[in-house]
């Protein structure tokens, strides 16, 4: 066992002074295992969306439920689903896809309030949260709660109604899932409160941690990172042994491979799952 591990990870006369895991044959096997792992995650997430999140299955009702849970935790009243705000959210999402933008205000200057008014909802207060490229509702609400400006919208005691839209489409040629959350309070519900509209226009892209729940993105990321770490360990050991024992052999430059994989590890850590606005 120890000998096999030695042959697999350390340069040795039995492996021609090159860790066997770095041999071309091993790299092909590793690529096969990598793709197989990803296929399993995809298969499980599509066959059993209850176990893993699935990009096209962000349930609007679940987003509302999680939003209301956050409000209850903060000691606030829950928001009621409003059909007109739902329509406004749908119209806003459709407009973003149609006019190819990702913003609260469209390139032609159309503000979120236009869609709310057009839906027939007579607001006294209104607000909007946006999210894109998330795979499950929990991550969306968690990302909003991690951003002070979005949290302020989510936990605003003045709001009484909520509307949600989840829509798939393309923005700048990139396949995207948009989540639009509209908040509102009519004149009836907040009588005698000064008329102001609240808009969340701060671009909030704080990194969001995912302390609980399994999503395909998280699993794939961990799986990919495990491969990079494995290769980095093998390359580091190889580099140390070659230097220590002054091994001369025909192979690529370990230092170059290390530089490349350190860069990939950094890229993997940088890539984010979704955005909020």
């Amino acid at each position, binding site marked *: 066992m120890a000998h096999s591990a030695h042959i697999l990870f350390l340069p040795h006369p039995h492996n021609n002074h090159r860790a066997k895991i770095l041999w071309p044959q091993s790299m092909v096997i590793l690529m096969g295992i990598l793709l197989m792992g990803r296929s399993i995650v995809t298969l499980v997430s599509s066959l059993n969306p209850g176990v893993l999140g699935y990009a096209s299955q962000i349930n609007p009702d679940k987003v509302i439920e999680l939003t209301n849970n956050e409000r209850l935790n903060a000691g606030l009243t829950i928001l009621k689903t409003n059909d007109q705000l739902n329509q406004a959210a749908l119209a806003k999402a459709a407009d973003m896809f149609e006019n190819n933008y990702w913003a609260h205000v469209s390139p032609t200057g159309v503000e979120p309030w236009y869609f709310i008014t057009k839906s027939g909802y007579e607001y006294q207060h209104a607000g909007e949260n946006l999210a894109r490229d998330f795979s499950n509702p929990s991550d969306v609400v968690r990302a909003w709660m991690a951003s002070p400006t979005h949290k302020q919208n989510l936990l605003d005691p003045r709001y009484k109604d909520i509307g949600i839209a989840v829509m798939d489409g393309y923005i*700048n040629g990139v396949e995207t899932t948009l989540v639009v959350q509209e908040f509102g309070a009519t004149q009836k519900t907040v009588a005698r409160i000064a008329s102001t509209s609240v808009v969340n226009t701060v671009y909030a892209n704080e990194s969001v941690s995912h302390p609980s729940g399994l999503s395909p993105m998280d699993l794939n990321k961990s799986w990919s990172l495990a491969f990079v770490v494995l290769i980095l360990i093998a390359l580091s050991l190889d580099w140390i042994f070659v230097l220590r024992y002054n091994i001369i052999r025909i192979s690529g430059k370990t230092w170059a491979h290390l530089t*490349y994989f350190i860069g990939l590890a950094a*890229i993997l850590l940088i*890539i984010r799952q979704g955005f909020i606005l």
Partner: protein
Amino acid sequence: MKRPTGKIFDYLILTIIVSVAVILTLFFNGNKEFQKYIVIGLSSIYIVWGIYHHKKEHTFYPQIILEYGLFGLMGTLIVIGLL
């Protein structure tokens, strides 16, 4: 005797290329299509760097090119799958 400065210069170039790719990924975070191009570009340049460096060192063998090619492909597969 080989001049070590040439070697150091090659590694410096590679480090700069990798760093630029990481910075670009950070700058274009959210633009997954562009990030794909960055990773494919980085892997391609890495393979070209390997060919250039080993030709320069007179250690250019098919097995070495295969090694760079497979490492490049592996790296691309690892990241592209997440984009």
